[in-house]
């Protein structure tokens, strides 16, 4: 009853529509006896913001690791820009424009914002760094993306969690990412901080050339900015609707129903 027919999605017809930048088709992944993902179908249109929701252990991170090239699926296909391929590594995925952004993993706390923006892609006037050029470009890029920080010269250690997340996203876009996977971008973040990230994603959406998958378990926060919602439950995508056709209440009901189901099963076994 909770499973939506994926075939009703307009973009999931025969043959990939040209506008899908990323598709996962019939993807399954097992770890020993545990099935982490079961015949998952996911698609992402150009410029779309997709929320991938699900409880802990539903398979969100496994799916993300597959999409960013960190792991390979046991079965199923990955299609990037209409082309079926194997994502061999994170670097390979990145070279195709797929980048995953973690909140704390990405940045170097002891370096300034602009050095972080250019990490391993520094502008050099041998033998020295061309700091002036990097500062200017970083400033311009952050301004253009609407990221508000007092100065690109402060070290990342002095920034708040939200600012860091914003810098990490900006850096990924700066490095030409076209498909951004944001892993729990609002975790442990205050309302004001979260709003900053949501604004940033909104801005990306306006630019139109970057597609975003936001992984979250607090769907109330991401609901307003996403175009579509997928719900992952026990390794399966059980729900796929444009966000204007659903509501936070409907999603909550689904999750609560799943929880009740699990309880019933456990009691049945006991």
């Amino acid at each position: 009853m909770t499973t939506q027919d994926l075939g009703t999605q307009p973009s999931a017809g025969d043959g990939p529509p040209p506008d899908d930048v990323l598709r996962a088709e019939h993807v399954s992944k097992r770890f020993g006896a545990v099935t982490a993902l079961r015949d998952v179908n996911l698609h992402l249109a150009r410029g779309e913001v997709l929320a991938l929701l699900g409880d802990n252990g539903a398979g969100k991170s496994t799916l993300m690791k597959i999409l960013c090239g960190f792991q390979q699926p046991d079965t199923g296909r990955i299609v990037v820009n209409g082309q079926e391929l194997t994502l061999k590594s994170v670097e390979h995925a990145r070279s195709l424009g797929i980048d995953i952004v973690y909140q704390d993993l990405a940045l170097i706390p002891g370096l300034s914002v602009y050095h972080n923006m250019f990490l391993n892609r520094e502008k050099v006037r041998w033998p020295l760094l061309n700091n002036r050029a990097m500062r200017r470009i970083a400033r311009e890029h952050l301004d253009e993306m609407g990221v508000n920080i007092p100065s690109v010269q402060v070290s990342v250690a002095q920034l708040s969690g939200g600012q860091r997340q914003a810098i990490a996203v900006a850096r990924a876009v700066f490095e030409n990412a076209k498909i951004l996977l944001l892993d729990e971008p609002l975790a442990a973040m205050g309302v004001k901080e979260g709003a900053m990230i949501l604004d940033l994603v909104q801005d990306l959406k306006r630019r139109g050339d970057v597609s975003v998958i936001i992984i979250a378990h607090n769907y109330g926060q991401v609901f307003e900015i996403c175009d579509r919602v997928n719900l992952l439950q026990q390794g399966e995508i059980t729900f796929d609707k444009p966000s204007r056709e659903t509501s936070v209440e409907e999603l909550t009901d689904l999750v609560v129903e799943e929880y009740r189901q699990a309880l019933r099963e456990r009691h049945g076994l006991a």
Partner: protein
Amino acid sequence: MSDTVESGSKVLGPAGADGDGGRGNGGRQVVVRSLAVFGRQREATVLVVAVALLLYFGITHTSTFVTQTNIVDLLSELMAPIAIIAIGEVMLLICGEIDLSVGFIYTLAPFVTLFAITDYHLPSLVAVILGLLSGVVVGWVNGFITVTLGVPSFITTIGTGFVLLGVALVVSHAEPSPTPPIALGVGKWLGVPGNPWQWAPFVWAVVLVAIFHVVLTRTRWGLYTISAGGNLLGAREAGINVGRIKYGNFMISGFMGALVGLQTAFYTNNVDPTAGGYTPMFYAVIAAVIGGTAMLGGSGTILGAFLGAMVLATLTDGFDILGISANILPVIFGGAILVAMIANVQLARLRGAGRSI
């Protein structure tokens, strides 16, 4: 927790949209702002301490402290070795490692040079270069065991340090030898008593500190060193070859140890198997730490370590002049490192609490 590596008169770039308030309120604001900028520099505290100590001894004991002999003692004999070894330790500490063997490289390198001259009759310049290279090789071995074989550098360098000490004792039969006179033509460039060569160790220290300050703050090598210690995973994710950085910094540290060992051998005209050891290494680490280098990696400054070495040397020299027993010095140094670390940790905590959101 840490400041930018950018040292900074121009800390505020083009103002952010964050309404940072009125500009151009005249001189007072400039003063306030420069004081704020100064206070934010990691070197600020240790600079104040170093200058205060120099002034104190210079003013209260002018006739003994401000003499050429004493200044050479202070700068070339006491400070330069600490400052030079500290360069290597700062680079290593920042990238998350430490070299406890550097004092034994100091011990062994002069023997390499000595035997190259006496046993193999090599030209003294070649012998000196071989001595320096031996330090680089030991640094490479430290890197290999730490990075490639995965042993924590704390353990690696205790092990290699003991090995080096043993080798030095064996090859010297635990007896010191005079520096071969034939080598003095080269040796004077590293520093020997008498004008002007007695200034050489200090000049080496200043030049190397200047070079490595630039390396740390203005080159990729410096950025990657900070990255390796600040966020190892993040640095790897960005595609930085972290292992190469660590190897290189171990080799820099080895070079510095060998250089100081050779300088001391020439300066004292004595190749001594009991020279070096843990003391110069620990002094260098203390200089690094009170200069603002984080023991856990990710931040630090070469200039700070230079000033830290100045503080330690001034205390040692000043106490000597005051006629106070040198036995109390370890208490002072131990206290200094504790105060510096407590201040570091607590200030970081305060700053963290002060930052809202």
